[in-house]
């Protein structure tokens, strides 16, 4: 054990220090659910859909699974950082539940793809794996040059926020009861994850230095340009979408129109600019200025 470096662990404070975050931890414990038993799977009835609709939905839910897996393999690194930096106990407690919930989302998304006819364990063309494989949060969490504030802003207030904005905008179109229930349950968890990020950043904002602000601007910009615009969440948004097959790119739309979850390009055209305007306005009081982003289909947003 001597070759490793010990943390400065004590005093080990456990009393709530951020009331709102503590409340999220308390709420998370009471809102557990189980993908195996809390989804009305018997109402999924894949046999009622056309073959191409089922294929699209399987592709959509498979890609969601890969995305959720990132929250098991990457973002838990943040908890290690909270521990070694002796951050408030509220953060550590809440984040353990977040990891649990993301595991649940991954399992639920896999089950959905599986029960629709089969989960795809990888993208159809291997190079697409680069775009959908990682959002790079683990690397950031272990990098002392990347501030925790920057990671929170990019992961929680950008990547998770747009995911949920699209979910909120499309959940009513999920006419399949099993899909709809699953989307509602994921949404319920994710709302807490996002609240956590904003609450932390709001609380820390008075102590932001110009360097912190630059760090946030850089991290959010990277998340938009190198993750969202590479198609991590939705391949239609990929600026260089050459690696994804037309079937994969169109899967979200076909699945959404069948009522099986997903979003259409029109949804993205509408929701993405609104999302950017929202986080720009939300971060402005901290002194954060996000640049305009150029996207071939969304325009200058």
């Amino acid at each position, binding site marked *: 054990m001597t070759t490793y470096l010990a943390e400065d662990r004590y005093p080990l404070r456990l009393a709530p220090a951020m009331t709102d975050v503590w409340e999220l931890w308390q709420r998370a414990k009471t809102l557990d659910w189980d993908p195996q038993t809390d989804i009305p799977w018997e109402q999924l009835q894949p046999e009622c859909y056309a073959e191409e609709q089922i294929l699209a939905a399987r592709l959509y839910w498979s890609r969601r699974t890969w995305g959720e897996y990132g929250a098991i393999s990457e973002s838990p690194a943040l908890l290690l950082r909270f521990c070694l930096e002796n951050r408030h106990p509220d953060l550590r407690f809440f984040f353990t539940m977040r990891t649990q919930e993301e595991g649940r989302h991954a*399992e639920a998304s896999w089950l959905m793809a599986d029960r629709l006819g089969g989960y795809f364990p990888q993208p159809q063309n291997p190079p697409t794996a680069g775009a959908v494989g990682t959002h790079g949060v683990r*690397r950031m969490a272990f990098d002392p040059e990347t501030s925790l504030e920057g990671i929170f802003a990019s992961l929680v207030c950008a990547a998770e926020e747009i995911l949920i904005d699209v979910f909120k905008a499309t959940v009513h179109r999920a006419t399949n009861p099993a899909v709809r229930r699953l989307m509602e349950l994921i949404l319920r968890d994710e709302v807490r994850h996002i609240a956590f990020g904003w609450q932390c950043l709001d609380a820390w904002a008075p102590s932001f230095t110009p360097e912190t602000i630059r760090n946030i601007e850089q991290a959010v910009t990277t998340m938009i340009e190198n993750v969202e615009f590479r198609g991590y969440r939705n391949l239609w948004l990929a600026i260089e979408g050459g690696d994804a097959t037309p079937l994969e790119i169109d899967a979200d739309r076909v699945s959404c129109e069948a009522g099986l979850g997903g979003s259409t390009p029109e949804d993205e055209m509408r929701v993405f600019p609104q999302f950017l305007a929202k986080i720009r306005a939300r971060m402005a009081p901290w002194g954060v200025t996000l640049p305009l982003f150029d996207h071939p289909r969304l325009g200058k947003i």
Partner: protein
Amino acid sequence: MAEIHAKLLRGYQAQEKGFVERRFPLRFEPENPTIRELYSQSKGLRWNPEEDIPWSRLAPAAYASEVREAARLTWSRRAWGTYPGMGESTALLIRFCLESGATGMDAKLFLSFRPAEEAKHLETCYLFATRLGGYEPDPGHETVARLSNHPFAQMALDPDLPLEAFVAALGCLDDQLDLNLCVSHLQQSRDEVARHALRLIAGDKQRHVIFAWTLLGARLPHLAAERRPAVATAVRDMLERVILAGYRNTWLLPPGARDRLLAAEAITAQHGLGASPVEQEKRVLRATVAQVRERLAALDVALPIVTHPELGRL
């Protein structure tokens, strides 16, 4: 950022670079039914320290002030020993993802739940201490602080250490001892709330221990011969340098460092508030080491006999 924090992060950063993660094909179907079942049980047997422990039946006023003082210290010490589990199990989850890439989903799903279970145990200890007069955030003695603070999360992410060695040392030995002590405290307790809390915690710990043994049994046969000796070495190190130094048992801490805590645990045990007498803990420790040695032998891992000035050959 404090230099010590930056140094620790750079350590993790270097460890992470020692792995090449291959994420696809990302398989989700069960490979190990026992571990998938444990994950399933974790989902079904969830509990909430705030709501599922009958705190209203804890009557601190029924105990003399020195008993309350002793018990709050005992449960504070338990919190210090519980806290590392959050980081260790998270680090193990990350290690699994880095190492096994596309496979091992049963273990990953199980481990995605475990940090929250550790957090609930920690919250329980905190709530118990608080209700008895207040949680103590600092051991108040440098030796106790040092001996209850080991960098196991770094150990989990060390590419030079086989994952099997970490699981054997932390899961099969330390978690097993922790479970056995928890069961002993439960058997010794008379206070209804202490019993309730310990029973809930023991239920989770039981799964953690089964997980470790199942995983070790499944992986060891595939471990390269030249990496195998690291397993026995890690378990022996854990026993000699960590456990016999007082990580789990206060009476094993050096004289002078242990006195206040030891006196507190004796009073806590005597009043049935969630501790065991020293003699009972000694029996549990001996039995656990024997049990772990036997089980490791079944997996062709020989745990050597260790000696301790007070306990003799173990």
